[in-house]
């Protein structure tokens, strides 16, 4: 089926089997490789992206339902030259070990911080409940998210930048 997808503010026309999960289209068709394939079963959170302001697991999200919805991936949070607050904070706090879980963590955190820039640790843990990190950098991830909240408040600048 032909479908038009709005990802990070850009519209893409693609032709795809309606039974395809969103993750495959992001990575294979659009070559947006931030979202990762971890389990493919909705259990690890590595594939988390934001759809209409809410975190979803793109490996179990039917692409056929994504027409007309706003999708954001880590590529939409900033660029290499101009990282967004979440990206800057994760670098500053050195929150990545292997980094595989980090894009998913960032997208869940992005949803949380947009609703609440000063979350408690409990709120961060609850929001990231479905994101697993096999390297165990959880404490740094918590610190990075708190830091990102600070950066967002300081900047009071737009929290979401458009790629490219």
């Amino acid at each position, binding site marked *: 089926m032909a479908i038009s997808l709005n990802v990070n503010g850009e519209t893409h026309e693609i032709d795809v089997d309606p*039974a*395809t999960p969103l993750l495959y289209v992001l990575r294979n068709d659009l070559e947006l490789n931030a979202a990762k394939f971890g389990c493919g079963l909705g259990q690890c959170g590595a594939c988390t992206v934001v*759809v*209409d302001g809410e975190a*979803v697991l793109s490996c179990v*999200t039917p692409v056929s339902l994504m027409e007309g919805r706003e999708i954001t991936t880590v590529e939409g949070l900033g660029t290499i030259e101009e990282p967004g607050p979440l990206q800057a904070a994760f670098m500053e706090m050195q929150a990545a070990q292997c980094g595989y879980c980090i894009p998913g963590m960032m997208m869940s955190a992005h949803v949380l911080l947009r609703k609440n820039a000063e979350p408690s640790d409990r709120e961060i843990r609850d929001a990231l409940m*479905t994101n697993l990190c096999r390297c165990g950098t959880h404490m740094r991830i918590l610190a990075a998210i708190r830091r990102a909240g600070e950066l967002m408040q300081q900047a009071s600048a737009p929290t979401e930048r458009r790629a490219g």
Partner: protein
Amino acid sequence: MGGGTAIWANAGSALIPKGEEVDPVRFIRFLAVVLILILIVAAGLFAIAWRGEIEPVAAVDPSSFNEDLVAQGAQLAAVGNCIACHTVPGQPAFAGGLAIPTPFGTIYSTNITPDPESGIGNWSEEAFQRAMREGVDRQGRYLYPAFPYDHFTLVTDEDNRALYAFLMTREPVRSTPPQNDLPFPFNMRMILAGWNLLFLDKGPFQPDTAQSEEWNRGAYLAEGLGHCGACHTPRNRFGAVDSDRHFAGGEAEGWQAYAINATSPAPIPWDADSLAFYLRNGWHEWHGVSRGPMAEVTGNLGLLPDRDIAAIATYVASVMGEPDQTRRERAEQLKAEISQGQTAVQAAPATDTQAGDAQHPGAAIYASACAGCHNGSKPLPFGGLRFSLSTAVNAPNPQNIVNVVLFGLPPSDGEASAVMPAFANVLDDQQMADLLAYMRERYSEAPAWEDVADLVARTRSGQYKVAVRPADGIERGPENVGASGGAEDAED
């Protein structure tokens, strides 16, 4: 006002002959007379049923209780699942204050820690025995049957003594639960005297001599402390368990408690072995994982010795009875299909949809959202159940499958548990209805459900309240209440 309103409405219309003009003044006068009569009868009942105060006792020394008795009480508290209602998620165990929504209003559970002011610290054993047997607190006030004393009345004095010992040796917590939020007349505790007269069959448990000792032990646990029927038996409009429809299915905290009698909708009928495995482990390969309020039940039953689990299973299996020929044959067919891994009704994952599926709007959703786990090769409890085996998909009411698809099964804190992603942010009401219609058509022989989109909308908005919690765990929500002095202490 729930049942009460309905009763009044019915009474009014039945007493006025059809087609006759009603004089409003006369009618109001008539209602007033009825009301006064009812109040008189209620007051009379109250006088008959009046229960006095039992004197408070001075602080009970926890070390005065025999250790074995306390350990026995811990197991019994697990059977009774006391912690579930008497604990707010994340708060200290047994300190009460959990809101229990009922059709009549909201009731808050009481503090059953041995704090003398806000808990039961100044209750004598006699007062505790009376509360369990008659549903009356130490001060003589009637308790609401949200506290299932209509079941607990079957519990023996010895078991109540052990429960008392267990509770009185918990950490005292100073915490007063909020006031109940019940409209008139349900806020009048004296009406419960009438309720008790009508619906309370006082114990203790009478064994059935025609049955085995194991069966009787199971019946005692399941009907008494276990209070299975509090959820699994439907209630009448007075909120009383409808004993004519024993185990015919009810509801709890927004979940359907399936029928566990001959009308059980499980595609493969339960037997004593599968029940025992499920109650012990919180899942079974032919039935899936326990979830919703049942997750706490199976989580707690983990504290029980095998012989008690086996006894409950034997009793419940006997209530379910032997399945008929059709169900047996269907079950054999399903088992054969499962052991082959691939089936006629269960086609392959992802893009490999069945002929004719292309037309069904739910088919593509199913293929990308569900098939990966539910038609995959990962075994239970961490893989998904084949939906041809799913009681939820085969049940008369779609509420449970709506709940899990919307809210998923969240992970439990610090424990391995089955998880499922929530699809509330992916699927709108109609898409959800399409998906469920497809699953019902493909994985069940039962007729299609009606008005699913509407049910989804009411559940999503919270108009229909659902308690969301991890599969099989003792915790409520992401916080583990056992960690605050509940079930963990029970092990020592």
